[in-house]
């Protein structure tokens, strides 16, 4: 009986350990993968580690993550413990009220707490950055510490402190010598939870940070939109650091205790942990690349860029820094809308890289400053088709960064070209391909597809037409079992997992270069012709340096680096010819050379009201997709 119980326990324990460690092990293994795939291991390589070390973003994020977590844990543990002890002796009504208050950050959806903090900092005009991140972390960690300390205090004999004081202790001594040691296990587990919460936090940090300050979660989130195994590499590094830290914390006290012939106690654990972590912080800080000096035009100045993740050539930033002596801080956004919210709330950047429709919106709301053509020498190098478009006539505000179309990426071995030509976007309603399709999780692209399939303009404001498009999409999600994905589509299509997907031309170019069975088709009913461009916000601190950056990115050298790394079509004439032409990286890949001057192709036009209608309808499409399951 006893034996079988023991065996049961051991089996259970082994299974849970496997469960907890399988994904972690998987991640470590794939951090050494030579290829980009997350499912097939093609060979051993350290290239993702090299990539990680070269990325200033990642190294700084690692440092920020640990620093914030350590400081937040230390402060919130002390404050939380003191507050919990104080509260336990307070009047019942105060105690109950504070219980409710403490529950706020734990009961609310994290995103609500995040928005709350954001509104708070904006209301009091606290500049967002490391300080706000730290404040927010402390604020949400304290309740967790108290939650863990409270039961310990509750189970304490309430007369203990009195007894100590009767025996001559001062209240402070009673607190430190009697109460704290008694509740130490609660304090330690509270500190552990606080540390875990802080190091894990994504949503709150994401909303309260600014000035390029990022923690690991934000880096992972913004980078995981595109497959990037450096994430696995940096995670592996983090796992190693934490494992070492934990082992040291756990082994050292026992070792010391043996030396001193005294049982180790929690207090000593904490002191050792603190010492280790301080060493660690300095260790990581020393890894941060140092800025060189010399006699360069923008020596010591800073350029703040706000761009999409994995949307910049590998060496652009370092080369530009080398060239100008300036320091570049790049923040990453995952959608134009998220970027807009930050910019509209007064966050200051020198360069943004939004999409066409968002540029139009920023212009309409006077958030951009006109370019100084005296400082720009790159406009002649660019493809004429991407200049002077409706979102910014005469390019008063913007310099194109990448451009392309949206089309259907398909598996030529499964999808017949005849069907594509005959049906266009309506192939997404053809039940022959049921379960074989990806939709892109973006209301603009999905409504573009539906509206074009129905023969309407993608910029319609007619509610009836939008309603029909909505019904078209609902029919699609209800009958076709699509998967609605974002950038996972790139890896998945490259692996040939499904037969059809809506993709951006630049992503299709990458997919086709990875998998020769894939093709890219632009329906005759037209598509979205888009441009992502660099703009300078009205409140930029260093517009002169911003112009310099625009020149560099648009030059042959910058544009080549950008386009060959990212895979999107370059606006630089020479680069486009070279990469798309004979001998280029994208030779023979039609997706790299987007269709131009086709009358049914349109540039997205921003209309506040239509956007809201579309967003709401798209949310409902997704809701009916999830209800159809």
């Amino acid at each position, binding site marked *: 009986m006893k034996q079988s119980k023991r065996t049961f*326990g051991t089996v*259970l*324990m082994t299974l*849970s350990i496997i469960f907890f460690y399988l*994904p972690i092990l*998987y*991640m470590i293994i*794939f951090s050494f993968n030579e290829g980009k795939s*997350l499912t097939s291991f093609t060979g051993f390589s350290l290239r993702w580690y090299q990539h990680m070390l070269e990325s200033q973003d990642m190294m700084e994020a690692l440092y920020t993550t640990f620093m914030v977590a350590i400081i937040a844990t230390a402060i919130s543990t002390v404050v939380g413990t003191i507050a919990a*002890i*104080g509260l336990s*002796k307070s009047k019942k009504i105060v105690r109950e009220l*504070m219980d409710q208050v*403490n529950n706020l950050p*734990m*009961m*609310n959806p994290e*995103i*609500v707490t995040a*928005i709350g903090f954001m*509104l708070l900092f904006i*209301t009091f005009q606290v500049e967002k950055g490391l300080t706000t991140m730290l404040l927010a972390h402390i*604020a949400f960690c*304290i*309740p967790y510490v108290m*939650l*863990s300390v409270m*039961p310990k205090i509750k189970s304490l004999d309430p007369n203990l*402190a*009195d007894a100590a004081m009767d025996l001559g202790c001062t209240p402070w001594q009673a607190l430190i010598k009697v109460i704290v040691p008694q509740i130490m*296990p*609660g304090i330690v*587990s509270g500190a*552990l939870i606080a540390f*875990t919460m802080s190091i*894990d936090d*994504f949503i709150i940090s994401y909303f309260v940070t600014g000035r390029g300050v990022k923690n*690991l*979660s934000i880096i992972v*989130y913004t980078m*995981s939109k595109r497959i990037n195994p450096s994430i696995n590499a940096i*995670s592996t590094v983090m*796992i190693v650091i*934490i*494992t070492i830290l934990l082992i040291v914390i*756990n082994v050292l006290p026992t070792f010391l205790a043996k030396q001193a012939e005294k049982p180790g106690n929690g207090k000593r654990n904490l002191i050792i942990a603190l010492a280790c972590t301080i060493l660690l912080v300095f260790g990581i800080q020393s890894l941060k690349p140092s800025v060189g000096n010399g006699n360069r035009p923008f020596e010591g100045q800073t350029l703040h860029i706000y761009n999409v993740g994995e949307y910049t050539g590998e060496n652009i930033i370092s080369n530009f820094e080398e060239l100008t002596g300036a320091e570049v801080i790049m923040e990453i956004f995952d*959608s134009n809308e998220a970027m807009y*919210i930050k910019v509209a*709330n007064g966050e200051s950047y020198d360069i943004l890289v939004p999409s066409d429709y968002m540029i139009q919106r920023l212009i309409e709301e006077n958030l951009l400053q006109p370019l100084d053509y005296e400082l720009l020498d790159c406009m002649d190098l660019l493809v004429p088709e991407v200049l002077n478009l409706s979102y910014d006539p005469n390019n008063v505000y913007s310099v194109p960064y990448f451009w392309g179309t949206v089309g259907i990426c398909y598996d030529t071995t499964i999808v017949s070209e005849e069907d594509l030509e005959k049906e266009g976007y309506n192939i997404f309603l053809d039940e022959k391909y049921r379960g074989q399709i990806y939709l892109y999780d973006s209301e603009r692209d999905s409504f573009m597809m539906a509206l074009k399939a129905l023969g309407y303009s993608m910029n319609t404001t007619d509610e009836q037409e939008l309603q029909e498009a909505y019904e078209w999409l609902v029919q699609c999600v209800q009958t076709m079992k699509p*998967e609605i*994905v974002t950038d*996972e589509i790139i890896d998945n299509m490259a*692996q040939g*997992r499904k037969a059809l997907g809506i993709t951006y031309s630049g992503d299709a170019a990458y997919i086709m270069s990875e998998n020769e069975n894939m093709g890219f088709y632009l329906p005759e009913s037209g598509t979205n012709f888009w441009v992502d461009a660099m703009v300078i916000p009205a409140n930029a601190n260093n517009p002169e340096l911003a112009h310099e950056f625009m020149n560099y990115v648009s030059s042959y050298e910058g544009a080549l680096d950008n386009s060959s790394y990212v895979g999107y079509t370059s606006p630089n004439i020479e680069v486009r010819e070279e990469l798309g032409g004979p001998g280029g990286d994208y030779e023979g890949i039609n997706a790299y050379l987007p269709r131009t001057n086709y009358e049914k192709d349109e540039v997205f036009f921003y209309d506040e009201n239509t956007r809201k209608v579309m967003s709401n309808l798209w*949310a409902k499409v997704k*809701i009916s*997709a*999830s*209800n159809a*399951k």
Partner: protein
Amino acid sequence: MKKFTTLAVPYIVWSALMLVLPMALIALYSLTNQGNTIISFSFTLEHYVKFFTDPDFLLILWRSFVIAVKTTIICLLLGYPVAYFIARSNEKLQSILVLSITIPMWINALVRTYAWIGLLSDGGIIQQILAFFGFHDVQLLYTEGAVLLGMVYNFLPFMILQINTALCKMDNSLLEASADLGANPLQTFLRVTFPLSVPGVINGITLVFLPAVSSFFIPKLLGGGQYFLIGNMIENQFITVGEWNFGSAISMIMAIIMMLMMMAVRKAEDRTQGRKE
């Protein structure tokens, strides 16, 4: 005694500023109708009406609760025996086991969830194992099962650690006393061990249920874009739709429901504690 009470004062001020005020700002947004930056005081209930009159929104709310309840039950059923086993091990093993449960929690949740994508995706290792046993082409990723798995994976350690803390705190002589008095192991468990671990169980449930019900990146990564929970809806309103007022209203609704539930749990907890004393 008074000296200890004053210890709480700074925190009361701090929490009024950092915890209550943000909620008040959100409540204000949910009841007004202005844009994202200008606060004007024309009160309206239309955002609440909009939510409660749309069956789709209500269905999402319901499903979020269902999946959070499922997650909590699974975590409790898996977590309790594990915590119990850890608590019954000898001291050395115990610290190793607690450590091995803690380490994964310290690794970024997004990363760990992201790692499951590779494991679960088509052509991934789990699908290959299933195929070996004769189950071919089982869709794993982008299913409700994947979301549930992701949630259990992320939140189970909280449950284990909370219950374990409660069990370790327990005085072992109680168990011996119970046995001496003629109780069999089952009776001891039901009458002594379990009631004493209730505070840990309740803390565990709190720490699992609350994040599960509002989680949005787990359903987003493992459920795909077509898997929508209330957290995704709120995120969507704030990030893509930009209707902060409506988003605030949904948040308030969630917050109020959760607060009511938690009050009920606390009441129940107090009652069990009361009976014991």
